[in-house]
């Protein structure tokens, strides 16, 4: 009886400790996207990507407010991006949530190629994706780099015929983020 209680309290100590280091977060990751169309090149960037990774079950959640993108070729283009294409008032955030496929030893520093499998929701439309990323683990933090493509039709983002030559059907996206353990 006493032994069981002792073991129990002893185990709890471990539980509390791993609670501190299991979740890594960041609220300032960057997302760059490019639309490379025959008649126009559009680039925009945001540094408001938020992300959290749970190292115990390899689950992750990233989200970004669409109105945080800056750049574009004019302020009007940015207004149209939010009002007409992404409808940011209706769908303020884009989200990617899921699990990392590979088993990673998060306590071992190194560079690991991983596949993040989950649901990517943009413009309110969910698509299952497996996104290849690079995880760089150091003693203090975890960095994520990833480059992938988003086909606009996947997320019901419509391009009117009149601007078909100015907006690419596929957008190149690059993510950069450094996550630190949540306290």
């Amino acid at each position: 009886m006493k032994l069981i209680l002792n073991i129990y309290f002893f185990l709890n100590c471990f539980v509390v400790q791993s609670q501190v280091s299991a979740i890594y977060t960041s609220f300032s990751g960057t997302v760059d996207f490019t639309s490379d169309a025959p008649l126009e090149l559009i680039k925009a960037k945001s540094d408001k990507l938020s992300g959290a990774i749970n190292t115990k079950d390899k689950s992750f959640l990233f989200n970004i407010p669409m109105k945080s993108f800056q750049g574009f070729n004019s302020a009007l283009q940015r207004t149209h991006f939010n009002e007409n294409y992404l409808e940011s008032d209706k769908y303020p955030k884009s989200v990617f949530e899921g699990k990392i496929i590979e088993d990673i030893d998060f306590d071992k520093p190194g560079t690991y190629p991983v596949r993040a499998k989950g649901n990517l929701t943009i413009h309110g439309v969910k698509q299952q994706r497996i996104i290849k990323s690079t995880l760089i683990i150091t003693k203090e933090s975890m960095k994520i780099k990833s480059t992938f493509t988003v086909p606009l039709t996947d997320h019901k983002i419509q391009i009117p015929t009149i601007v078909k030559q100015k907006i690419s059907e596929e957008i190149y996206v690059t993510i950069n983020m450094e996550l630190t353990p949540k306290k």
Partner: protein
Amino acid sequence: MRQISCILFIVLFICFGKSYSQNLEDILNNNPQDSLEKKFIDATFKSTRLINSHTVEMPAKKEMVFCISHRFGLLKDGFKTFYGLDESSNIRFGFDYGISDWLTIGIGRSRFELYDGSLQLKLVRQQKGLHNIPVSINFYSAVEANLADPLVPTENFTIYRFSYTNQFLLASKITNKFSLQLMPTYIHRNLVKTGNDKNNIVSMGFGGRYKLTKRLAVTAEYYYTPSNMLTTEYYNPLSIGLDIETGGHVFQIFITNAEGMTEKSFIPQTTYSWKEHEILLGFNISRVFSFK
């Protein structure tokens, strides 16, 4: 006793286990930075013009808005003039340039040698987050010079060519589809037509837009000038229209009783009346150019 302590052990472990697996969503949504951010409201209107009036939308820094406006003849002239399209009662072209994100200067010319220059200042932006401000407030000021020769040759006539308009634009994007704007206006004309006409006019403008689709909106605009400031020859201007946005252009088509295109013309000098069915078709086309 042993069994009870075993059950207790398991129950307590489950409880601890549950609180351990924290919800990632809750973690991300509780970012303390969120409430410290200013979230400005964008795109209260689709363009810098409502119908005759300016809106709180201004070109961004180093952007220019070019606007061409036309007013036609009376619809009630019927099929012969194709409902007024034959007659071009007024034309204006104007350029508004963003010196900074909060200051715009403009120049324009309307029919019969009317030249106008203006500036607009963004004073307050509608926003949420750090501060909750439900309105955007801009200040618009214009000078107009009438370069036409006076009917009777007059010495030292220059000063009488000028009129001044000062306006506050108070706008609110009430929902994603619906925006309203109030335009309290003060107009001073150095020269008026008769002794009964007032040189100083105060008027209140009301305007709004309702989005029907992503690119199509219904607009309306009305100015109320107290009847003691206008002689019975003049009527308050009422306009109703449609905004069609296509990429870099906004087409605005409307019906109105006002032929004038600057505040000093359409507010106190509208001689047509809706009651008499004296309405005409008009359009504005604006295009944004970027000089970045």
